[in-house]
């Protein structure tokens, strides 16, 4: 089941390769069907997962490279499922957001689907080598997608992004190899490795490799500058996936690998991590305030919001970790929505300069409303899922690092300031003559938009189903770390 | 009396390194391609030698066969590319192809 979900996009990608490039509708339908199938399977898995039992379920284990002790070992626990669901949602919405892609659309969809296979794979692999393979599978298409279909300094951004991510991967690969040799079992089977307790001294030496490798992707300050550039340059669907999902790979890796394997070291390092991610939160918010390009605002807001994820992780409390994963989910949905709308605005107004935009609400009321709701989610308004996430993170963080938490929470004021300023400057104010002909979001766009919107509101009003699911994944981790409730 | 295994391995290493030098230092794309084939041959020799000395039930030989077929494919595509380049640029000098300059 898990395997089917992971490879549905890849199968669709191969199918697309066989289709002639001028069958444009067929290409889109295949992509939409594949992403729909993945989404349906992801939803099914969330329901089929037995929360009372907990742990990793739906395991499939095949011998992959027996010589190395590497397996094709996939499964899912509460954290994986939340991330898988997020990926499927963003992919589905992303396919619809790129419906009107014109240049080399076939190759675009193929790469998009390959990328998503990698992302799905990372979330469900329980074998370190498989994990790394899927990870690279996700990173490489990103380069092409940005370099070929991007805008504003796309080569620079793609180049920078790939260098940063590969630098991160180098650390990861080194870390994984070191882990491999230090277990004495010569296996990549994560379930087996995570059963071990590593010597604290060893943990302290190995933790930085894995943590930094993933933190670059989160992105943690000061390794964040690739991300706004990447966001800004990428085409709409890629921005959605990039900010919505790819950044989560980092945080997911921190939780899944670094924290699970090296709880003692993580605990020792956590004050530093908490301090850095507080910088993330405040700094991202302040820098967002000074941006002039719409996409950069969202990009830096992501830096800020991902800081909350790390803060929740560093809190080492069940509430904080649950909040962190929930924040990953809701931030993904929210930024997906943002980038879909920014893409729409850019397509209609041909600029993303905030100062040049204004009064678009008259020409595109639906897009404006949706953007406003995403903006409200971004500033953590109750009733939308980000609020639940942030509040849980705050509860967790406040318990362990009250002073840092206060600084982090203070950012909600700055966030409100820049988000509202941006929304108002783009959509409100006097309607401008030159945008009178701009079109509102149409049916095709609405499919993705409303789906994401529904998720945002739905889990905002009734978060417990997802929170419960995530908790089952977080609980064993907290027990293992000897963290606080 | 068969020669010891490391004789074969050193022969393979020599072939590999000669090929490596060619790939790095030759201006003619065709020679560079031949050098790649030499490197592959070195690897192949390793496979066959290990197969014989470690008793791996033909795994090495089968692998070598696959390598040969892939090498053939690579040579075909590589040479086609060389010819295409030669037609377009009227040159097969690798030092002149610097379009990927960053």
């Amino acid at each position, binding site marked *: 089941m898990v395997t089917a979900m992971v490879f549905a996009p890849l199968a669709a990608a191969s199918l697309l390769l066989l289709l002639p490039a001028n069958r444009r509708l067929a290409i889109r339908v295949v992509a939409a069907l594949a992403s729909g199938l993945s989404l349906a399977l992801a939803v099914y898995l969330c329901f089929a997962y037995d929360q009372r039992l907990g742990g990793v379920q739906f395991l499939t284990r095949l011998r992959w490279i027996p010589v190395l002790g590497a397996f094709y070992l996939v499964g899912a626990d509460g954290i994986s499922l939340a991330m898988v669901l997020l990926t499927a949602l963003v992919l589905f919405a992303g396919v619809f957001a790129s419906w009107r892609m014109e240049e080399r659309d076939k190759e675009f969809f193929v790469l998009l689907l390959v990328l998503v296979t990698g992302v799905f794979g990372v979330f469900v692999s329980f074998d370190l080598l498989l994990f790394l393979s899927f990870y690279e599978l996700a990173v490489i298409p990103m380069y092409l997608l940005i370099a070929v279909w991007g805008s504003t300094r796309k080569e620079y951004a793609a180049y920078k992004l790939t260098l940063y991510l590969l630098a991160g991967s180098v650390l990861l690969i080194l870390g994984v190899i070191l882990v491999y040799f230090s277990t004495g079992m010569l296996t990549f089977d994560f379930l087996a490795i995570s059963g071990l307790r590593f010597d604290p001294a060893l943990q302290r030496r190995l933790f930085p490799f894995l943590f930094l490798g993933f933190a670059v992707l989160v992105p943690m300050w000061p390794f964040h500058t690739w991300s706004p550039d990447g966001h800004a340059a990428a085409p709409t669907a890629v921005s959605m996936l990039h900010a919505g999902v790819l950044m989560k790979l980092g945080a997911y890796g921190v939780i899944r690998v670094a924290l699970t394997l090296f709880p003692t070291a993580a605990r020792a390092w956590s004050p530093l991590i908490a301090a850095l991610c507080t910088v993330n939160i405040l700094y991202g918010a302040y820098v967002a305030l000074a941006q002039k390009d719409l996409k950069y605002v969202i990009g830096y807001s992501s830096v800020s919001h991902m800081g909350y994820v790390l803060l929740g992780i560093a809190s080492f409390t069940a509430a904080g970790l649950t909040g962190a994963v929930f924040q990953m989910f809701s931030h993904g949905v929210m930024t997906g929505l943002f980038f879909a709308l920014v893409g729409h605005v850019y397509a209609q107004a041909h600029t993303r300069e905030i100062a040049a935009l204004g009064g678009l609400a008259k020409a595109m009321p639906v897009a404006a409303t949706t953007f406003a709701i995403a903006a409200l989610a971004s500033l953590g308004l109750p009733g939308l899922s980000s609020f639940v996430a942030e509040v849980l993170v705050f509860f967790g963080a406040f318990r362990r690092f009250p002073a840092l938490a206060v600084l982090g929470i203070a950012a909600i004021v700055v966030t409100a300031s820049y988000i509202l300023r941006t929304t108002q400057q783009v959509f409100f104010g006097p309607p401008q003559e030159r945008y009178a002909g701009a079109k509102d979001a149409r049916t095709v766009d609405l499919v993705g938009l409303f789906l994401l919107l529904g998720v945002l509101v739905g889990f905002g009003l009734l978060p417990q189903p997802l929170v419960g699911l995530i908790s089952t994944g977080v609980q064993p981790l907290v027990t293992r770390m000897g963290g606080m409730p | *009396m*068969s*020669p*010891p*295994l*490391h004789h074969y391995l*050193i*022969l393979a*290493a020599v*072939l*590999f*390194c*000669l090929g*490596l*030098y*060619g790939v*790095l*230092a*030759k*201006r*003619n794309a*065709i*020679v560079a*391609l*031949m*050098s790649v*084939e*030499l490197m592959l*041959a070195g690897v192949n*020799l390793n496979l*066959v030698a290990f*197969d*014989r*000395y470690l*008793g791996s039930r*033909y795994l090495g*030989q*089968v692998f*070598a*066969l*696959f390598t*040969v*077929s892939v090498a*053939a*494919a690579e*040579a075909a*595509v590589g*040479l*086609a*590319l*060389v*010819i*295409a*380049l*030669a*037609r*377009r640029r009227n040159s*097969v*000098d690798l*030092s002149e192809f610097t379009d990927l300059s960053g």
Partner: protein
Amino acid sequence: MTAVFWFLAGVTVLAAAGVMALPNVFHASLCFALSFFALAGVYLTLGAEFLAAIQILIYTGAIAVIIAFAVMLTPPAIGHSNLSNRQRLWAGAVALLALGLLAGGLVPVRWPEPGPLRATSAASLGELMLTRYVVPFEVAGFILLVALIAAITVAKGALKP
């Protein structure tokens, strides 16, 4: 047996060196064929007759021939001169370093003694390929097909303008 090996190994290495050193690319391609011919002999000393046969068929037969064709199809000015580029000294240094490392790492190891020399039957190889290794076999076939089509497309596209 050892003497045979030494002879074949010498021919292989000298011919390979010829590929690097001969000023005329056409001569270099002939050396290339010779080197692979001798290498097929080395395979024989290892009891891999089938592989040796394949080696001769594919390399000295097919690849050497298309290389020769390629040499003739490319511009004569450089096509027939085997020049080295400006980083040849560094390249040589790196290649020597590589050789030193590989050999230095190989020699001290105590390698296992070989068992009795048995000829490989093509039949058993074929059986293996179609049973245990059938998936890689099919994949290799597919790759060959793709490469074939790709080679034709690329070369044909080049001829058009």
